[in-house]
């Protein structure tokens, strides 16, 4: 037997390798760190993210490089998404720190799992092979299952984790099954190769479309869009808020990335089929997400349904890239969807950050009523929350408006005006429940008068987060261009 092992080029994956090594280092350091020195682990985690950010930035170049036998790609699209991913995770850690410490959850496991989940997302973002996607996805998902259940004594969290695990495993199964169909039809798992083979006419269309259904179902589960959304409200509600914040922010970036890689790079030839599927998913998500959110009294559940509708909106951008086989508006549409995701992550971080801000030892600020009279307790943070809520509702001058605007114009460009009308009508309904949060903050008297205590770094960062939402609403051009660059690199790459 002839073993012919060629050392793969590790350079494109240096950020991932660094993160993995550091995660292992954290694991080791943990053995020697007592309970009183947990800040060391925290610091190490933040340094890891900063280091990964630096490495990605330093290794940035316009060329798309693949490695590990074309299983892993390092292109600008991946780099740009990762450059948003690290800060999102870092901000999440800052917001969560006090909350975790107050509940004795700030064990090194938390940070370790977050690092592994981050690694999973990075792998997903850089995947150029169906198996790599699956690997990244599972690394992320398994870390998240454990994170949801990290508060072992909470029955609700454990139940949420079980639900999440069972449904997640099923979704992974669906995805794998779909992938196997695609492999059966074209004989390759390399995404770009699959795209080319389908374009040259190889592969049975029926088998491919059959596989596509399962692939889309798997992706839809990960994105959390209707009718594959059932886990979202329970997990958002059941998990400790710090974990909800994590699930509700950075993984959306990774889910967006794999959606783009699989559907646009791999299965572009089947666009007419997946477009219809995405259209149904998007329309249902926008409708159900917004309608169900109205009925919630728990803010985490409300934000869960809001997340569903936001992901539906984002899919509108993805599906309007190819119009009847004509990819003329692809760049416009995909960059809009990417802008939407980035804006959403920014808003989601801030909103859950506010929920964390109001929580303290022995008290979970989970209900919308817990925001009552916030304007009296802290006008500044009430203003921040107001900015975030209006932004989520898509009211100018906040970044949420331009996110909606970008996606809507992509939909209109694709000549689907009725879909745009449908989307705006439901975002009107959405405005209601965001307004309700503003209402309890500004129009109601406080029931809870405890002073708002939070570490200074969290206060500052939360303020920066809120102001960024306002600032990007005034001057969104920078992030719009950023999305354009990334999407352009993505389109050139395939």
């Amino acid at each position, binding site marked *: 037997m002839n073993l012919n092992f060629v050392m793969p080029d590790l350079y494109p994956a240096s950020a991932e390798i660094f993160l993995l090594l550091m995660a292992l280092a954290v694991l080791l350091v943990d053995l020697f760190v007592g309970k009183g020195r947990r800040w060391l682990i925290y610091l190490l985690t933040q340094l890891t993210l900063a280091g990964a950010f630096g490495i990605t930035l330093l290794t940035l170049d316009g060329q798309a490089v693949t490695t590990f036998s074309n299983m892993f790609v390092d292109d600008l699209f991946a780099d740009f998404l990762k450059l948003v991913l690290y800060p999102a995770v870092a901000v999440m850690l800052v917001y969560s720190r006090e909350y975790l410490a107050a509940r004795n959850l700030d064990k090194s496991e938390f940070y370790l799992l977050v690092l592994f989940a981050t690694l999973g997302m990075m792998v997903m973002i850089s995947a150029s092979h169906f198996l790599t996607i699956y690997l990244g996805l599972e690394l992320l998902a398994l870390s998240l299952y454990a994170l949801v259940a990290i508060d072992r004594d909470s029955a609700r969290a454990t139940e949420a984790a079980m639900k999440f695990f069972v449904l997640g495993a099923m979704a992974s199964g669906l995805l794998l099954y779909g992938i196997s169909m695609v492999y059966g039809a074209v004989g390759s798992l390399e995404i770009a190769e699959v795209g080319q083979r389908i374009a040259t006419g190889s592969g049975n269309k029926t088998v491919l479309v059959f596989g596509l259904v399962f692939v889309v179902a798997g992706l839809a589960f990960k994105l959390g869009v209707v009718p594959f959304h059932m886990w979202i409200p329970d997990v958002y509600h059941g998990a400790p808020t710090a974990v909800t914040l994590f699930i509700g922010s950075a993984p959306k970036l990774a889910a967006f990335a794999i959606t783009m890689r699989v559907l646009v790079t791999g299965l572009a030839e089947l666009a007419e089929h997946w477009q219809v599927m995405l259209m149904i998913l998007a329309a249902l998500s926008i409708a159900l997400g917004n309608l169900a959110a109205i009925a919630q009294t728990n803010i985490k559940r409300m934000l869960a349904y809001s997340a569903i509708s936001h992901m539906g909106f984002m899919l509108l951008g993805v599906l309007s890239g190819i119009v009847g086989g004509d990819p003329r508006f692809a760049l416009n549409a995909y960059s809009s969807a990417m802008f939407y995701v980035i804006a959403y992550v920014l808003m989601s971080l801030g909103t859950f950050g506010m929920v964390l801000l109001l929580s303290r030892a022995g008290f979970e600020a989970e209900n919308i009523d817990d925001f009552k009279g916030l*304007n009296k307790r802290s*006008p500044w943070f009430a203003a921040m929350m107001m900015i975030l809520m*209006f932004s989520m509702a898509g*009211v*100018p*001058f906040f970044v949420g*408006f*331009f996110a909606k*605007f*970008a996606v*809507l*114009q992509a939909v*209109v*460009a694709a000549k689907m*005006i009725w879909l*745009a*009308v449908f989307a*705006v*009508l439901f*975002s*009107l309904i959405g*405005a*209601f429940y965001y*307004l309700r949060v*503003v*209402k309890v903050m*500004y*129009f109601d008297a406080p029931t809870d008068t405890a002073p708002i205590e939070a570490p200074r770094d969290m206060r500052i960062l939360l303020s920066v987060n809120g102001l960024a939402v306002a600032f990007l609403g005034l001057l*969104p*051009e920078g992030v*719009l*261009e950023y999305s*354009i660059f990334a999407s352009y690199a993505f389109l050139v790459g395939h």
Partner: protein
Amino acid sequence: MTGLPLLSIAIWLPIVGGLLVLATGSDRNAGLARLLAMVVAVAGFLVTVPLYIGFDTTTSAMQFTELRQWIPRFNIHYQLGVDGISVLFILLNSFITPLVVLAGWKVIEEKVAQYMAAFLVMSGLMNGIFSSLDAVLFYVFFEASLIPMYIIIGAWGGPNRVYAAFKFFLYTLLGSLLMLVALIYLFYQSGFSFNLLDWHELRIPLTAQIYLFLAFLMAFAVKVPMWPVHTWLPDAHVEAPTGGSVVLAAIMLKLGAYGFLRFSLPIAPDASRELAWLMIALSLTAVVYIGFVALVQADMKKLIAYSSISHMGFVTLGFFIFNSLGVEGALVQMISHGFISGAMFLCVGVLYDRMHSRQIADYGGVVNTMPKFAAFFMFFAMANAGLPATSGFVGEFMVILGAVQFNFWVGFAAATTLILGAAYTLWMFKRVVFGAVANPHVAEMKDINAREFVILGVLALCVLGMGLYPFPFTEVMHASVENLLKHVAVSKL
């Protein structure tokens, strides 16, 4: 003309000033907040004066223009400019703001800084709406102005304020969201431009024009408000604090009508002509039917709110009979209504501050205890009824003349407002002011103080001045109106 970006200053000075007022913080610094707000409001008015003085009345072109790139990704520009139609509204808005600040001076005791800041920010946003020449810029200001108003109604309003605030916000948002889709559609139709002036030259097939017209109608009809989408207004007015009602009536209602002139008529002229019957019918319904509705109101603010709807019916009627008398009359009516309805709401505010009731039945014989107030109230009531020599008469008369020129029976129906308006206003006035002192509360009421006297006096002068000599107003708008009508007369199919 100076090189200063006057329009930008008119927009951003009140907004930045408002944020500064907000920074004064808690109610311990209420005095400072009031003073600062007044300074900003007056400064905001002063910077708009050169807009009128330096205005060239001979041209219909946009003046004081500013053009900067804003979001190149979507070819959106920060493009400002005013013509004879919009300049007056910027002046009106900036003129009303100090009065509103003054009106809330003593009455508002809680969250003073936030109250003042909300009004200042709103004033800036309104100026932005009236001076935007880029559709997205317009839309952004248009929708952002909902936020301060939502807070004003909800935080300082009456008992049912939460309901009113939500209704106001969602109702108006519904219309503007559909308009957003229309704007994006036009962006693609015009080859990636959001420039309003480009859009005015755009050729659009009739079906598309009709859809566009309907989308704009949704946005602007709610804002005007036209019958049958007017129901948010009485609620909002009744619950809003006095200052909120004044701004709503004097400025916010004008946004819708202004939108018709800037968007519907020039962009979809064929659809406008095609659907003019509908607009005229809706307008006349507002004038006549809402006039009757006003007659039976027991709440003074509601009555004035319905009277506003009825008067705004006149405005939309004036637009859609497509002659210069009608359009100019409608514009005069808009300005005049800004003064009169603002003053009427302030009068009710004066009563409310003393009695904490808006019910007509709770009053009677106010003239005995508040003679100075009664005189002002009388004057504004007469103006509201369209008495000659007040500004209320000028606009109505011009629109009726225009309407008769268009069709006698339309003019006839419109003219009934002179009777109806007099009936509901004067009857209310009689019940509140005349007669014997109705109850001990009325007997205890004190006449208006110097602050209230100044506010009402200034408005009375405006109403009288405009009624006696409307030329300075019509002169400014004439060239632009002529140009607009010429534009509308040409088919763009």
